């Protein structure tokens, strides 16, 4: 499905709010989107039909398209994958893994059949400011695209990479990105174009199949084409078409395709921008992305995403990172955890139910997660809990820390782990150079400890099953308003 079909489906499900009165692309749209999430817990996507300066036909905005609820952040991605509404998290993760293992190649179609070529603007006609790109927060350096796929290609192997890198509109035909060495797209540029004195062609795709964004954020291995993973997740090939001014393949159903080039050695400044980490990060130095052509659908719909503290469209991004951690555990010989949670309201925190097979497994878990590709931008504090703990609720995780964490010894610290430009600690130069990073594991498990824990006292631990069942049975008869809350191991 393309973005428009996804919006129609949400409308049919009663999950779309349409706003026809004028809303400003400058701050207002993003403020409404953020508040809409806060008030409705991700229940509704919001479509802005009348964007100031762009009404009636220059573009519209969609917010909270990927946002699931706090307890079920995967539900919108599952919806776009065509999975049942009541799918559990574990079933969902299993299905993502199953589909990932069966990549589906893209299908190339002719330009005449591609909706993204309805309007073509070349050279001086191409103007980024003709698109309703939002200015998200008062502290930002410029208008930003944050839900996008930047497409570039390895000139040696032909591997096409698609990545989600925040992208700042500088002027009608110039942009800048948080373009960090170590991520696939930037590494291809720095090592295989700039180092050889060559210009790199690139494309930016906005608003294709919603799963395109999820995949652009996934930490796939080098050499794995993201288009194959998009096809896998949607269970059929993604239709692609050649760009107008270079030979890259782009999603044919995208709302907007921006085509351009990055010339070796050119730099400009990028930022500041209010990030999902919860802070406005300062300026960075970026290559200059020069625009040569923009193709688009008529009256395109652009994502109006509000980053920052609390949950939002990041729900569509974290699925890929969480499955990345699960794969890494398996690859390095650990028992695959049943779950892995990154909490978008506190992205640097992650927790998982973890079953160790020997005392050393916790240290291995620390090593695997501290040095994995996806850990650069999240997971500074890792909290493994016992295998029967439901880590979906951050309060339960901290309850486990309070119950089980031994402050004397069982802490692992990452040495020489990569720093990230999104961290709040260290100075900006260290963040940009990836040095002086830090990660820590708090062990909230009870397995293989040299001491024995006293017996726990809770509803589940202190009463025999027959008593618990009897209480559950008679609860409603006792006249209480609330339902009984149980966390039996088999229910977790």
């Amino acid at each position, binding site marked *: 499905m393309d973005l428009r079909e996804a919006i129609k489906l949400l409308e049919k499900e009663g999950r779309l709010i349409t706003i026809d009165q004028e809303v400003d692309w400058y701050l207002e749209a993003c403020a409404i989107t953020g508040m809409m999430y806060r008030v409705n817990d991700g229940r509704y996507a919001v479509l802005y039909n009348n964007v100031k300066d762009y009404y009636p036909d220059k573009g519209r905005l969609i917010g909270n398209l990927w946002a699931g609820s706090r307890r079920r952040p995967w539900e919108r991605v599952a919806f776009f994958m065509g999975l049942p509404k009541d799918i559990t998290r574990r079933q969902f993760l299993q299905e993502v893994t199953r589909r990932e293992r069966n990549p589906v190649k893209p299908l190339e179609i002719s330009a*005449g059949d591609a909706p993204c070529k309805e309007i*073509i603007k070349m050279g001086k006609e191409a103007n980024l400011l003709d698109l309703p790109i939002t200015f998200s927060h008062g502290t930002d350096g410029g*208008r930003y695209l944050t839900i996008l796929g930047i497409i570039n290609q390895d000139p040696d192997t032909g591997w096409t990479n698609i990545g989600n890198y925040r992208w700042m509109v*500088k002027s009608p035909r110039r942009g800048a990105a948080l373009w960090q060495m170590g991520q696939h797209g930037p590494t291809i540029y*720095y090592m295989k174009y700039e180092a050889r004195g060559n210009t790199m062609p690139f494309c930016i795709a906005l608003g294709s199949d919603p799963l395109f964004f999820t995949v652009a954020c996934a930490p796939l291995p080098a050499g794995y084409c993201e288009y194959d993973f998009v096809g896998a997740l949607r269970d059929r090939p993604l239709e692609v078409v050649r760009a*107008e001014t270079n030979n890259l393949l782009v999603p044919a159903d995208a709302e907007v395709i921006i085509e351009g080039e990055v010339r070796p050695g050119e730099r*400009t*400044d990028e930022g500041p921008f209010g990030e999902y980490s919860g802070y406005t990060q300062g300026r960075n130095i970026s290559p200059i992305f020069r625009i040569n052509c923009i193709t688009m659908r008529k009256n395109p719909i652009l994502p109006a995403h509000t980053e920052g503290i609390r949950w939002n469209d990041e729900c569509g991004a974290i699925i890929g990172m969480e499955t990345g951690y699960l794969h890494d555990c398996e690859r390095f010989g650990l028992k695959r955890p049943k779950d892995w949670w990154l909490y978008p309201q506190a992205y640097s925190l992650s927790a998982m139910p973890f079953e160790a097979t020997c005392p050393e497994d916790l240290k291995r878990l620390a090593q695997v997660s501290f040095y994995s590709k996806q850990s650069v931008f999240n997971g500074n504090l890792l909290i493994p809990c016992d295998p029967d703990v439901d880590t979906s609720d951050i309060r339960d995780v901290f309850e486990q820390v309070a119950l089980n964490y031994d402050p004397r010894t069982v802490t692992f610290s990452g040495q020489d782990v990569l720093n990230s430009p999104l961290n709040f600690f260290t100075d900006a130069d260290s963040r940009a150079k990836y040095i002086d990073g830090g990660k820590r594991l708090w062990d909230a498990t009870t397995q293989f400890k040299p001491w024995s824990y006293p017996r726990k006292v809770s509803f589940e631990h202190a009463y025999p099953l027959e008593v618990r069942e009897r209480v559950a049975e008679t609860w409603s008869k006792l006249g209480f308003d609330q339902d009984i809350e149980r966390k039996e191991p088999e229910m977790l």
Partner: protein
Amino acid sequence: MAEYELLIDPVASKSVKGGTAAPAKSDVNVLETLPPENKEIEVELRDPRRMESFKVRAIFSSKPEELPGADILWIIRQDTGRFKEPWAVKIIERFEDEVKEVEAIPRRKLSLGERKGHMLSDLLKERESKMAEKGKNK
């Protein structure tokens, strides 16, 4: 009288990412401190109406009355925000975006057969390479 904004960032990263060759043509104009007054410098300004950035050669002054005919300049510090009182800026030269003459690469229409063939040949190639790898491992 037009209004412009100037962003200054005392904690900006000065590191060039990538670690490859040093940039030949740098367009980095981050000011860490206030601009020097009554002196021509090249810097990036922002038009608050469209949030468009552009490079200029300009003269700045903290006392607007001392720079007649100048435009209004709002200074925004990354850490403390917008200054209460505006400065003045006189733009000597504005550097516009380069426009590159580009042409679309001619493409011929793909037949349905070709489209399917493309996908099948890709899948076949992948299968063959997997089989070859399996053979090697044996």
